[in-house]
């Protein structure tokens, strides 16, 4: 394996993991505020759907290269819409957070497909978006060996995801908002007694998680598939959830986990290009990313500690 291959693998890993990173960031914000978000899959689905439709419509309307950006924004907003359902159910009505998340997954897959059929004359797939995102090569930086190929020649959404990791990290650990958010997720009544509006914080966090996961879904539609259909999002949301836990609810950790997973996927492709791979049953190659993930978890990372109040609805003393 030469250096170029390594760079290419890293590149594939980042492309693959962009959506996972974004969705995982969403998951982190929501869960750090104490709200379990098992609905990431559904939020991604909503985002992918809205982005494919809007980008296509924008392209039709002649927005050209702005179309994918319009799609990205639409995806984010649609994610927020579905996250709102989760927020209302779990925060205002104190529904079980896991249940509500599963409901989001159900309603998102059902309603987006239904809408696709409504919008595209009964077709099960949106029309292909031609104006998708293109890779941006960062001049200069892309010359660096390995990471030049690996990171600095990527989709704008990948850069966006990496920047957002930084922003979310900063917000969580350096800003007042982050301190309060984490307090709400660890010990809501402690936050309440110092005058923090617990429910408002949780609403904000859950809606942001919709925004980010929606964006994550959108990146898949706008860089990988170009369309939205019933299988555009198939399991990525759950992998993102795994990345949240794997990364110990820390943005950098989650990014590491997502990229690791993407890297394992690209190893599995590169492996098939070698001759010796013909002796390995292909199924074992497909398993590789998942097996590696488990091995890494078993070997390196110990128990991860969830936010203290994760999953608990907050009652401010019953009336």
């Amino acid at each position: 394996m030469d250096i170029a291959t390594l760079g290419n693998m890293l590149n594939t890993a980042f492309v693959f993991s962009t959506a996972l990173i974004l969705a995982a960031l969403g998951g982190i914000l929501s869960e750090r505020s104490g709200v379990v978000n098992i609905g990431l899959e559904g939020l991604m689905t909503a985002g992918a759907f809205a982005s494919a439709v809007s980008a296509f419509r924008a392209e039709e309307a002649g927005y050209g290269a702005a179309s994918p950006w319009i799609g990205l924004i639409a995806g984010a907003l649609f994610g927020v819409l579905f996250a709102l359902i989760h927020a209302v159910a779990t925060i205002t009505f104190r529904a079980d957070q896991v249940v509500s998340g599963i409901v989001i997954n159900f309603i998102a897959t059902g309603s987006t497909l239904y809408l696709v059929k409504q919008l595209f004359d009964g077709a099960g797939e949106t029309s292909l978006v031609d104006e998708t995102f293109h890779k941006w090569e960062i001049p200069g930086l892309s010359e660096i060996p390995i990471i030049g190929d690996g990171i600095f020649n990527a989709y704008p959404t990948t850069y966006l995801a990496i920047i957002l990791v930084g922003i979310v990290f900063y917000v969580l650990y350096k800003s007042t908002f982050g301190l309060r958010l984490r307090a709400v997720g660890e010990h809501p009544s402690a936050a309440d007694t110092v005058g923090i509006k617990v429910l408002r914080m949780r609403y904000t966090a859950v809606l942001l998680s919709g925004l980010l996961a929606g964006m994550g879904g959108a990146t898949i539609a706008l860089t990988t598939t170009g369309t939205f259909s019933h299988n555009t999002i198939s399991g990525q949301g759950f992998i993102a959830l795994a990345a949240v836990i794997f990364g110990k609810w820390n943005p950098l950790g989650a990014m590491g986990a997502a990229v690791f997973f993407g890297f394992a996927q690209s190893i599995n492709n590169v492996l098939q290009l070698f001759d010796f791979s013909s002796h390995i049953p292909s199924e074992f190659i497909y398993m590789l990313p998942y097996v590696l993930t488990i091995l890494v978890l078993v070997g390196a990372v110990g128990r991860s500690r969830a936010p203290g109040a994760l999953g608990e609805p907050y009652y401010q003393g019953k009336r």
Partner: protein
Amino acid sequence: MNKLIKAFTKDSAVVPLIAILLGLIVGAVIMWLGGYDPILAYRSLFEKVFSNPYDFGETLTAITPLVFTGLSVAFAFRTGLFNIGAEGQYIMGMTGATFVGVNLHMPWYIHAPMAIVVGTLVGGIWGMIAGYLKAARGVNEVITTIMLNWIALHLSNYVVRRFLLEEGKGRSYIVDENAQVTIGWLSRLLDDARVHWGMFFALLAVIFVYAFLFRTKQGYELRVVGSNADAAQYAGINVNAGIVKAMFISGALAGMAGVFQVLGVFMNQAIAAGTTGHGFDGIAVALLGGNNPIGVLLGAILFGTLSYGAAGMSFGADVPPEIIRIVIGSVIFFVAAPGIIRWGMKKFKRKPSKGEAV
């Protein structure tokens, strides 16, 4: 009898009924907005399920695996574990049963039971892996079960291809007749619907899970572990063993879903491109049923009926069957957030009294 009436007029019974009604209304509104005829759609749905013996029988067949996976998830929940891996355990259970069903040849009274037992054990072991990793290494079971789902998919494809493949068919050989668990007479009675013994095993499983969890000492132990692991440890209960045991049972239940699908419905195992969704649907069923075995049964019946009837809806009223997922989602939503219904009920009840006051 009085008790029964009371049970049904209690808040806890009214709420789910209202939830179902509201879910159907949400679906109706969406259909209506989309220009479809909701009345016709629902009529087609229920006609599909109840108007002829064949479809009725097939509906029962559709409900059966949901009972198992629903129980699997609910059981794990009760013991404090979130098993997202019913999907993988289902596949592994299926593979185990297919292996025995295809590769061994024995009289029926050994073959079928053996296929069932082996499949169930394989499913259980698959669940146990996640349990073991949690107990011994502290790895969160949510991640491992997600990963194990994918591993199970590919592993079973490998097993089918390597050991069971019927050349050119893309699937295993048909399992021996002696390993099949169809019910011939009932099937004939129901116009050849693929009814099988799994249905009765599902009912037994409901009773088993109920009795095990709430009536046996082992079930008690697992519930203590699930509800307060620290207290369990103080009480001298082996928490780690409990986790492994619980995941084994949960996996075995999900495995049985796969076992009966192959021995009762498909008779062979295809090389699969993706997961079936039965495991994930099991989460929904468990939640519909409030993680209570009886609730799971009712939840599976509701879920299975609606899903199976969805084909009738698209056949009879040209409504996209996706709408049913929205309906099911809404029902779960309203079941899960009884606050919404209670809140609505209160408003509803209060109105007349206000009127009186004026």
